[in-house]
């Protein structure tokens, strides 16, 4: 396994608690004043030149939010968040109106370059295009939407996507250009009253991605959004809405990073997926927000609501996530299996090290007939971190023939960390077949001894075992992400061995 060698090399080069993406970009930015009030909501809405109905929608969410209390059921501890001490909107100060990518602030472009995200479309030379019937993946392209603090700075490959009929744009633009689609679907999966953080997001979300794939279209390339928090004292509230119309397919990738800071920053996103008849959405996340330093100071609070609605028959939604960052993760990508014969999948690797706290999992809600779901969750806890899997599988009375398979395994590295499993399995239908299994263990001494005896160092051996442990999930990631994820895993675990 060459990748393992590579990860181990990488681990060696990096000191403990070194976060690769911790740099800060110095650019001028335009911020909303600190604090949250109706005026803040109006300010954001005005900044985005939103129509009146959108403002009304936000205000309604804000008023609802005022009546709600912060949830406390998750196994995470953090000091009370002062919601009045956050900037709810920060945008890189525009020098002038942008007409092409060349006009984006070079500092931002540099940031993305440092992150390894190409925002420039690499022109395909004539004659190099793959021959008909040839291997298309040899020349894979990814369309990227880059979100910097509160605004989307660039979306690549717009033209090519337009030819295919795919709409991929910042959601703020979509609200203006495709109000009928946004009106129909926004909040239909995660209603504004859903939970504390989702409601807050509904009131103050600033940007995010919007994807619409028309009937029968297989999106010609992977779509990707890269989120970056840069400003100090800001919260990031992005909103993603993906609609796969009948018989379409789309694969969407999401990555995130933030600078290294002593303060905790709030990230409360909402992602809504809608799959109509025979449609399929594959949503992959590599979450690498700043996790705080080795003392547990700083880091991002990642309180995210992600939900997919398999609204049509034979539809499918698949979540894959690699969670390595954030001081606190509170995230449960879920599937509502409404259509008959629909399918939901959840593949997760959650790694916690240092003082990180992860409370993540999924919900599979079986409503339609012959719906099936699969949950594979791998939790790895090291340092003094706490790693919790919390999942719900439920079959409604009418969900005849519902099937679920759940496997959640936890690996403990060190004796100061904790790994927890809190599954809820609810069957209200006799023909539902649910299987759930969970194991927790440490890396077997025998296995390590076997590897070391064959010439691997202790670290290499752990790397080998961990990579084997998470293999089932890594296989589900698109190729580009799988490589990145594998590297991330090795970085997150560094310092936990020996």
């Amino acid at each position, binding site marked *: 396994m060459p990748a393992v060698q590579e990860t181990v090399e990488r681990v060696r080069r990096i000191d403990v608690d070194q976060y690769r993406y911790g740099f800060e970009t110095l650019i001028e930015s335009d911020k909303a004043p600190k604090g949250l009030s109706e005026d803040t909501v109006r300010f954001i809405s005005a900044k985005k030149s939103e129509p009146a109905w959108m403002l009304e929608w936000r205000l309604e969410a804000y008023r609802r939010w005022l009546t709600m*209390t912060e949830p*406390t*059921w998750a196994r995470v501890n953090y000091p009370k968040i002062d919601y009045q001490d956050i900037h709810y909107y920060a945008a890189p100060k525009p020098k002038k109106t942008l007409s092409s990518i060349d006009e984006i602030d070079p500092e931002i472009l540099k940031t993305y370059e440092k992150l390894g995200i190409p925002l420039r479309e690499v022109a395909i030379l004539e004659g190099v295009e793959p021959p008909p019937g040839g291997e298309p993946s040899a020349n894979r392209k990814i369309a990227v939407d880059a979100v910097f603090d509160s605004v989307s700075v660039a979306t690549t490959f717009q033209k090519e996507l337009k030819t295919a009929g795919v709409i991929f744009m910042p959601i703020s633009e979509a609200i203006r250009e495709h109000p009928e689609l946004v009106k129909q679907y926004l909040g239909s999966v995660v209603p504004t009253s859903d939970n504390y953080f989702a409601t807050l997001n509904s009131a103050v979300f600033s940007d995010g991605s919007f994807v619409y794939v028309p009937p029968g279209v297989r999106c010609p390339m992977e779509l990707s959004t890269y989120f970056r928090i840069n400003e100090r004292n800001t919260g990031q509230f992005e909103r993603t809405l993906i609609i796969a119309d009948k018989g379409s397919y789309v694969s969407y990738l999401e990555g995130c990073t933030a600078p290294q800071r002593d303060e905790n920053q709030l990230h409360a996103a909402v992602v809504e997926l809608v799959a109509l008849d025979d449609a399929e959405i594959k949503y992959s996340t590599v979450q690498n927000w700043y996790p705080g330093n080795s003392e547990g100071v700083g880091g991002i609070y990642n309180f995210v609501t992600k939900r997919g609605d398999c609204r049509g028959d034979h539809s499918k939604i698949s979540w894959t996530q690699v969670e390595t960052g954030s001081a606190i993760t509170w995230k449960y990508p879920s599937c509502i299996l409404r259509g008959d014969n629909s399918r939901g999948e959840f593949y997760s690797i959650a790694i916690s090290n240092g003082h990180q706290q992860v409370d993540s999992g999924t919900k599979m809600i079986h409503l339609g007939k012959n719906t099936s779901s699969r949950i594979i969750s791998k939790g790895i806890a090291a340092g003094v971190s706490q790693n919790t899997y919390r999942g719900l599988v439920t079959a409604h*009375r009418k969900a005849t023939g519902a099937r679920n398979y759940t496997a959640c395994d*936890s690996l*403990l*590295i*060190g*004796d*100061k*960390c*904790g*790994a*927890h*499993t*809190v*599954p*809820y*399995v*609810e*069957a*209200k*239908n*006799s*023909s*539902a*077949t*649910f*299987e*759930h*299994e*969970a*194991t*927790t*263990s*440490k890396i077997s001494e025998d296995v390590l001894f076997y590897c070391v005896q064959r010439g691997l160092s202790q670290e290499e051996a752990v790397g080998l075992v961990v990579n084997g442990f998470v293999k089932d999930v890594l296989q589900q990631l698109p190729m580009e992400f799988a490589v990145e994820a594998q590297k991330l895993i090795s970085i997150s675990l560094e310092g936990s061995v020996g």
Partner: protein
Amino acid sequence: MNVVLAKNETGRALSESFAVVRDRLPGGGKIAEARNTAFEVYDRVGLPHRRLEDWKYTDLRALMREVLPLAAEPDAAALKQAAAAVKLQAIKGARRLVLVDGVFAPKLSELEGLEKGVTVRTLRAVLETGDAALQTQLFTPDNANPMVALNSAMMTDGVVIEIANGVVLKQPLQIIHVAGGATPAAIFTRSLLRLGEDAGATLVESYIAADGVKAYQTHDSLIVAIGDNSRLDHVRLIEDGRDAFNISSAAVTLGAHAHFNTFGMTSGAAVSRYQATIAFAGEGSRVETNGVNLLNGRQHADTTLFMDHAVPHCASREVFRAVVDDRGHSVFQGRIVVRPDAQKTDAKMMTRALLLSDDAEADNKPELEIFADDVTCGHGATTGALDESLLFYLRARGLSEKEAQALLIQAFVGEAIESIVNDDLRELAIAAAQRWLEARG
């Protein structure tokens, strides 16, 4: 829980009921004080509801429609009724302790030839005249659980059994809880079993109703302390009346190299909840807990287990089976906690539910909470219907649909029942399961 919900009618009625009976409850001074504190703790939450995580699936505010007055001392008629019911439950050779409507009934009890080193007293006697240490132990269960707190406040009677070091009981001890009163009432009991070092015993708890006794509420709790190198086998059978409530708790602690084997089966009661906390206090101990729910009609049965691995080198096994028919609702909540430093813990939990009808419901919540790394822990949960191909196989060999189902159900619950070591007790459990299957028709 950050929202304190307003109390419903039932909760209020209970508060008033405590005020009325407070002075009649056994034990003065410190005991009365402890009762008051417990009731205050209970009163702050009231009847547990679904917004409390622990009671998510058993919402007593919805299920307990009316609160019943505290049971009166059983009269002659009740005792006579109870005697008949007890006869059917008697185990050959077992020492019998009978509680009728929450009051110890010496005439129905059978303690002949009790081994030396075994003392049996009533809770009432211990609360009124017992030593302070024992009284303190009786108040050890955690009042954080509202129904435990209510029990602490209201307990009227029960049995307190002490088994000295080195004494191994040859015959089982059987505690029979009988509801015998003609008027519907609430029964509050608490019992304690203290097993010394190198000792051994078998304890059977049966919950039944006399003929014709229908709506009543049983609130029981059991405190067990198992000494070093001791072994306790425990069987509890809930065959309460079909309109009854049974809310029971158990708090078990194990010393070093101790062994606790427990089996529980619920086939009676309209609503039942068994909440057990098993804590390891000494190294090298082992616990096997097995449970079966057999439900039909509109029965609701909840088993909530908390396995506390506080010390290293202990092992626990949990096997739970639920068979749910009609509109029955089975709940299993199992929580295994491995505390920091409880290395070399070996904990397994397996829960399976069999749904026999489209309106049946089974909820499983097997939880693992692990703070030590050198452990092997696992849990599994399955839910499903009877295997069509197995049914077909049996049908093809001439069994009727019902017979085929019965055979498969027996096999399904068999795995849990087989854990009972004592042959007579195993037969007793099998007979209870048989009764349920026959009643199913």
